[in-house]
């Protein structure tokens, strides 16, 4: 081996450094088509075999999915479905980066709103319009998975982001469980308070769960159904009268919330409700399993804080999270699509629903879970699609929702609205 000088060696190391620099300076975004995604086309067909990675964030549903995977594998020789589960925060922050190369997530779930939009823009979804799976859904509940004319995702779960009610405490207090207007709602709270319980347990210290009440409060106050999108675009403002009216209604709630509500995390709020100290838990039906797990044995109903004067457009609020999709960059689209088809069959969707205490958007599902059975009529009511997920910018969403929390903690509606609008203006 011939010898080299120190200068030559330094030159070689320098070249390596320069190479690293040059590589680092390659434009962001990588290839022109991220991860090789090809945009919305129907998933490829073929043999249902091989490995399918199913990426999602619902760790609590793992056992239920394991059972469904077993049943799916029993139908198809040589197919294997693996769950790639992240926490919801991680999935929200990094889901796109994880899934876009299809190293994981041949089939995947997305949150409604900003995440669904980002996945759509990145061309990760396959087209599911006209698929066997899509035909199994209630048409009115498919909108959250649509983009233009395409049906890119299938909104699987249906949740009701409305306060859950301890029906026994309502009976004891003689309180109306379905108030027709805002005065009726406040009168109901007054009766509950007079009976010696906290009317509403609200986790104001938890931005995500505390924010669900916003979906109910804004539904019948806003002049248009895409109110949050319009706030983000600058067409509507937090300083508008209708928004101030809503913040004023938040202020009305203060005497009926647990003390120090803005410092309460979600777990203590659930405890107040499940222990019968609070008549309502202002999060949503997605917490039924959790409060049952905490020992709540009373019948659970849903209550819509109807902010209208009696002529409100909506009777409640719902949301479609957990939007199923087939990755356009997947190398095993046939099996991935078959897995989504399988989940979307009424029998399997019913199994998922009853085991997880979540309603689903699949039609003809038989609910055997007593809570789901009792709350099933809400699937047919005129409910508003949860408005807070119209926000595409999370800073805007948090700022607007924080205005409600600020009012609860004593800030005037005007000041809270101005503070929120300032941030909205900066983001427009």
């Amino acid at each position, binding site marked *: 081996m011939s010898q080299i000088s*120190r200068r030559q060696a330094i030159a070689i190391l320098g070249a390596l450094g320069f190479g*690293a620099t040059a590589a680092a300076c390659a434009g962001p*975004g*990588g290839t022109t088509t991220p991860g090789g995604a090809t945009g919305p086309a129907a998933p490829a067909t073929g043999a249902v075999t091989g490995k399918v990675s199913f990426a999602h964030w619902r760790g609590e549903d793992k056992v239920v999915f394991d059972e469904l995977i077993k049943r799916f594998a029993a139908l198809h020789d040589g197919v294997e479905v693996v769950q790639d589960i992240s926490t919801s*925060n991680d999935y929200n922050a990094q889901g796109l980066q994880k899934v876009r190369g299809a190293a994981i997530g041949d089939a995947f779930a997305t949150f409604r709103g900003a995440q669904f939009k980002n996945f759509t823009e990145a061309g990760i979804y396959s087209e599911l319009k006209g698929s066997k799976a899509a035909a199994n859904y209630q048409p009115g509940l498919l909108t959250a998975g649509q983009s233009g004319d395409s049906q890119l995702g299938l909104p699987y779960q249906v949740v009701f982001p409305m306060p859950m009610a301890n029906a026994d405490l309502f009976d004891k207090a003689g309180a109306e469980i379905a108030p027709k207007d805002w005065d009726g709602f406040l009168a109901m709270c007054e009766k509950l308070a007079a009976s010696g319980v906290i009317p509403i347990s609200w986790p*104001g210290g938890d931005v995500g769960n505390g924010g669900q009440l916003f979906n109910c409060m804004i539904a019948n106050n806003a002049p248009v159904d895409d109110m949050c999108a319009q706030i983000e675009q600058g067409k509507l403002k937090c300083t508008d009268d209708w928004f101030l009216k809503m913040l004023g209604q938040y202020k009305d709630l203060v005497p009926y919330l647990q003390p*120090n509500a*803005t410092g309460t995390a979600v777990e203590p709020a659930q405890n107040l409700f499940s222990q019968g100290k609070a008549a309502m838990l202002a999060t949503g039906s997605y917490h039924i399993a959790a409060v049952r797990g905490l020992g709540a044995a009373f019948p659970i109903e849903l209550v819509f804080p109807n902010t209208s004067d009696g002529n409100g457009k909506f009777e409640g609020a719902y949301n479609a999270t957990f939007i199923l999709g087939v990755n356009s960059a997947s190398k095993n689209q046939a099996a991935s699509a078959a897995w989504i088809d399988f989940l979307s069959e009424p029998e399997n969707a019913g199994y998922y629903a009853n085991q997880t205490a979540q309603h689903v958007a699949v039609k003809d599902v038989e609910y055997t879970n007593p809570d789901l059975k009792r709350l099933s009529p809400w699937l047919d009511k005129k409910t508003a699609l949860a408005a807070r997920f119209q926000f595409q910018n999370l800073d805007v969403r948090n700022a607007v929702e*924080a205005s409600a929390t600020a009012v609860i903690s004593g800030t005037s509606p005007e000041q809270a609205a101005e503070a929120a609008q300032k941030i909205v203006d900066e983001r427009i």
Partner: protein
Amino acid sequence: MSTPTGTAAQRKAPHSPTRTDTAKARRRSPTRVNPALYLFPLPAVAIIAFFLVMPTLQAFQYAITDWNGFSAAFNYVGLDNFVRAFTKDSLFTNALTNNLKFVLMVVIAQTAFSLILALLLTKNSRGSILLRALFFFPTILSSVSVAFIWKFIYDPNFGLANAVLGGVGLEALQGSYLGNNAQALYWVAVTQVWFHAGQMMVVYIAGLQAIPRELYEAAEMDGAGRWQQFKSITWPFVAPATSIVVAYTTVQSFKAFDLILGIAGNPPKQSLDILSTRIYSTFANSEFGYAAAQSIIFMAMIALVTWLQRRLLRLTPKGE
């Protein structure tokens, strides 16, 4: 002026080589070495290049774009992201203010508290060793565990803090803690100090135990009081440790990301948002270019504050 000595021949003799001469000679006659020797640092160079140089350079590049983190399309926007952070983003300036407040509170409280602990527990008695272990214990916990423990201590409904206050008849002092925007940051600072003071106490104890006992004995014989002994003996010896404690605590409190996120949830509310959580929120908001610019500002700020501290806190023992 010195006078040359010796013979003319001696004066003309070649002088002993200077450093410059040696360098010149090296350049003229390169050292020949076995090239295989230069292969040994290659793995380290490759690792540093891939995991340090490239990401850092990429961050600088992303910082001047409007890249959203996943799209192939992006534009170069020059220094707009940096300007935006300071002029058009009240969430960033709010996080910056919170962070500076937090650092100041924690540095002062943690330095003082850990020094006091060290002074109290520096003797090697059985009780002191047990107490040292107790105070050091939080350090071995993960920050996420600490965050959750304290989140429940602060809970206004079921929390230990309100329960204790209620138990001793101080209901008037019970509060919402993290729910009170004006106080929330102070309470997180308390947690941060509880979490790390034990670690810093160990640094101080090491410094204290290096002080010769004879100095105290001599001081006592001279009639020096406790304060005089501290001022004239203890402090000069532990001053270098203070320099380390302050620098370490500063960097640690700037980056209290996991503690804040664990206590306050994601995203934290504005009163608890610090730079690291703000950067995370900006990344999560698909603004990679802007988040990269914020990261660079953050990095520069830590470097600047650390450098300033090193300049201002040149605490060395007397005589050095």
